[in-house]
C-alpha cells in the first residue's frame, strides 16, 4: 500500500542510533526498576518494556553490545534483553510483569 516503505533505504551506517553510554544507562535504570521481582518475572518485565517502548534500532544496539561482552550492564538487563530473541512474540501490556 505504501510505496514509501520499499523505496527508501534502511538507514545510515553501522553506528548505534544512540550513543552506547546513553543506552546502557537507560537500560540499567529499567533493570533497577524490575529488580524486586522474582527472576523470571523480572526478565519478562524488562523484555516487555524494551519491546514496547524502544525503537528497534536501540534494541539491536543493546543486543549487539551484549554479544560483545555486556560490560557495565546489570545481569538482569542481559537476561531480559536476551528474551527479545528467544521468546515467542507476544502483545505488549501495561502492569506487573507476566511470567
Amino acid at each position: 500500500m505504501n510505496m514509501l516503505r520499499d523505496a527508501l533505504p534502511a538507514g545510515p551506517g553501522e553506528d548505534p542510533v544512540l550513543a552506547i553510554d546513553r543506552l546502557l544507562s537507560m537500560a540499567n535504570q529499567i533493570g533497577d526498576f524490575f529488580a524486586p521481582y522474582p527472576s523470571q518475572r523480572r526478565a519478562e518485565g524488562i523484555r516487555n518494556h524494551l519491546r514496547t517502548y524502544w525503537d528497534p534500532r536501540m534494541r539491536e544496539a543493546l543486543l549487539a553490545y551484549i554479544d560483545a561482552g555486556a560490560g557495565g550492564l546489570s545481569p538482569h538487563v542481559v537476561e531480559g534483553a536476551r528474551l527479545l530473541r528467544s521468546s515467542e512474540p507476544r502483545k505488549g501490556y501495561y502492569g506487573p510483569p507476566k511470567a
Partner: protein
Amino acid sequence: MANPIKPDRSVVTTCAYCGVGCNFKAETHQGRIVRMTPWKDGKANHGHSCIKGRFAFDYYNHADRIRKPMIRDSISEVWHEVTWEQAFDFAAQRFRRIQSRYGRQAIGGVSSSRCTNEEIFLTQKLVRAVFGNNNIDNCARICHSPTQFGLSATVGWGAASQHFDSILQADVIMVVGANPTEGHPVFGSLLKRRVRQGAKLIVLDPRQTETVRSPHVRADVHLALRPGTNVAVLDSIAHVVVREKLYNEAFVRERCEWEEFEHWAELVGSDRYAPEAIGPVAGLDPADIRRAARLYASGPNSAIYYGLGVTEHSQGSTGVMCLGNLSLACGMLGREGVGVNPLRGQGNVQGGSCLGSWPHVFSGYRFVTDDEVRGSFEAEWGVALDAEPGLRLPNMFDAALTGHFRGMFIMGEDPVQSDPNQGHTIAAMSEMECVVVQDLFLNETARYAHVFLPGSSSLEKDGTFTGAERRVNRVRKVVEPLAGLQDWEIVVGLMNAMGYKCHYDHAGQILDEIARLSPAYRGLSFELLDRVGSAQWPCDEHAPEGTEVLHRERFPRANGRGTFMLTEYVPTRERVTDQHPLLLTTGRILSQYNVGTQTRRTANSRWHSEDILEISAEDAAARGIKDGDMAWLSSRFGATQLRARISQRVNPGTVYTTFHHAETRVNVVTSDLSDWATNCPEYKVTAVEVALVKPAGFDEYGRSLDRHAGLAAPDLSTATTASHPGRQEVHA
C-alpha cells in the same frame, strides 16, 4: 468601571493556559478581542478564572507575531518571506531528501499541548502515515509521560479518576508535588474552599508553597521532603498503612489483584521503609510520615492530587505507581470525593496524551505493535504503518548527535528553552538539515530552524481541548488567524505537499475521525459539545454525555481489576557534592505560563518580570548573598545568573526558581537524567552551587550575559562548561 468599548460580538471558548480548561466569553470589537469574561456555565470553572485567562490575551495581537511563512537554506542566513505553498514545498522537499539519503526513520515530529486535539491527532497522522515512521512525540514527554505509564500500570488509564467538583466531597486531600494555587488557580481555589469547610490537608513538597499555608488555609501535615525522595516517602507512608493494617482489605479482595497486593505489601512493609529509616533520608520527622499515612487511610474519602513534583524525576513513573498503589490499597477509588488526579500543566496535555502523539501508542494508549489496532488505522488512512515504536523526543536529539536523525517538524513547542540540558539540545538542533517550526513567535528553537510556519493561537481556531479532568471542551474561533491558516490547516498543507492527499472541510471532521479510531472518544462530536457544553471521556454508547468518575465498577484492565506495582526506592544518580552542595528544584508562578512565550508578551509581566532564585537565609549567609543580589547558579551542565531572594519557603540545602523567562536560561543548568520508564527529564533535582556575582569584569567565557552586561561571574572552576558540545552555539 464599565468597559468603554462596547463589544459587537462574543464567542464562548476554552482557555489554553492550564489543565483546568476554563470556559470564557471572548468579546470582540471590530474584529479585535477586547475582553475575556469567565463563563458561568463552564463545567470546569463555574464562572471563575485566574489572571492568566482573564487578562493575558493580548499576546495574540502582539507586534512580535509572525504573519508570513519564512524559509532559509541554513541557520546562519536571514529569513525570506514566502507564500504558504512555497514554504510547504520547501519543507516537503527537504524532508524527502533527508529520507532518501538517510532512511525513512531520519525525520520525526513533536506536537504541542497548546494545540487542539484535532491538530495533535493530525500531527501523529503526518508522522505515521506520511513520514512513514513512528517518530512522533508530544510535550507531555517532559511533564506527564510518567502519569500515563504509572497509572496505566496500576488503575488502567493514565488520566484523572475524578471531575474537579469531586473534591467538594473529600475529607482528606493529599497534594503531592503540585502547587495548584499557582499552577491551576481555579482548581486551587476549589481546594482551599474545601479545606476551609474542614477537610484535612496533607502536602508533600520541598517548599512551603501557598497551598501549604495561606489565609484561612493551613496544611495539617507538610512533608517538606528533600528533592528526589518522593518514592522513599510514599513507600514509607505505604509501610505504615501495611504494618498498621490501615488498608481496605474488602476493596482490595473484591476489586484488585490480591496476589500483587501481597507482593507489594511485603516490599513496602519491610523494615527499610519504616518512617524511622526513611525520615533521615528525606529530611523528615518520622512522626509526620506516620501522621500523613493515618490521616490518608482514615478518609473516609481521601483524594490525591499531584503534579510535576512527582513525575519529573528519575523515578517519576515509580512515584506515580506509588500513588496508584496507595489509593487502591486504601480503597480510595471509584466514587465521589476520592481518586488519583494528575494536575496537567498546559491546556491540552491530557488531549496530547490521549490522541496518540507518542512513539509507542495510537490514540487511546493502544500499542503500535498491536496488529489489530494498527490495522484499524491502516484501513482508515489507506497506507501501511510502521509496526515498531519510534524515537522519543529526547532520543531524537540523542540520535541527531549520532547522525541518525536529521529533520524535525515542531508544532508549537520550544524545546531549546523548555528541554533540560540546553547545551545538548542546541548541539542536536544544530546538526539537523531541516527543522520546521510552527509557532506564533520566533522562539528560541526558531534560531535553529530552516522553515518557520506562522501558527494560530487558540483564539484563532476551531477544535477541542481535553482538560485535566478528562473534560473535552470546545475551542471556538474568536478572531481570524493572523497568518491566514489555523494550525490544522497548516498540517494538512504539509501532508499534501509531501504527496499524501487529504482534506477536511472543518475541524469537526477531524474530531469525527478521532471518534472512529479512539474508543474513549467514540461518542464525541462538535454537535454533542455544542449541545451539552462539554463532556468527560469515556464518552460512548454507555455514557452518551461522558463520565465524571472512573472505576466505579471495574478498572479498565483486561480482568477489570486494579493492581499493584513493586516500587523500590532507587536514589537518583544526581547527588550533591562538595562542588555542587545544593539541590535546585524548579516550578512556576501564577501570573506566567510555562516558558512565557505568550504571557511575557502581556502586561502580566508587571507581576513577574524576571525569574527569582529562592534561597534559605542560612545558605545565603554562608555565601555572602543578600536579598536582591545577583547570584551565579551553576551545575555540572552549565551556569546562568539571576536575582536571589532570601526565602523561608525553602529549607537549607534546597534552592528554587521558575523557568518563565528565556534570558534566565534555567535549563542551561538542569540535569540530563530522566525517568527510567519514559525519559521524562529530572527537572526537579539538580545539584548546584550558588555564588554572589561581583560587579566587575567579564564572565568566565569572556562575554557578558544578555540582561546584565558588565556583571561578572565569580571565579568558579566548577561552573566550567567549555568542553560541552554546543557551548559556543549559545546565543547570548
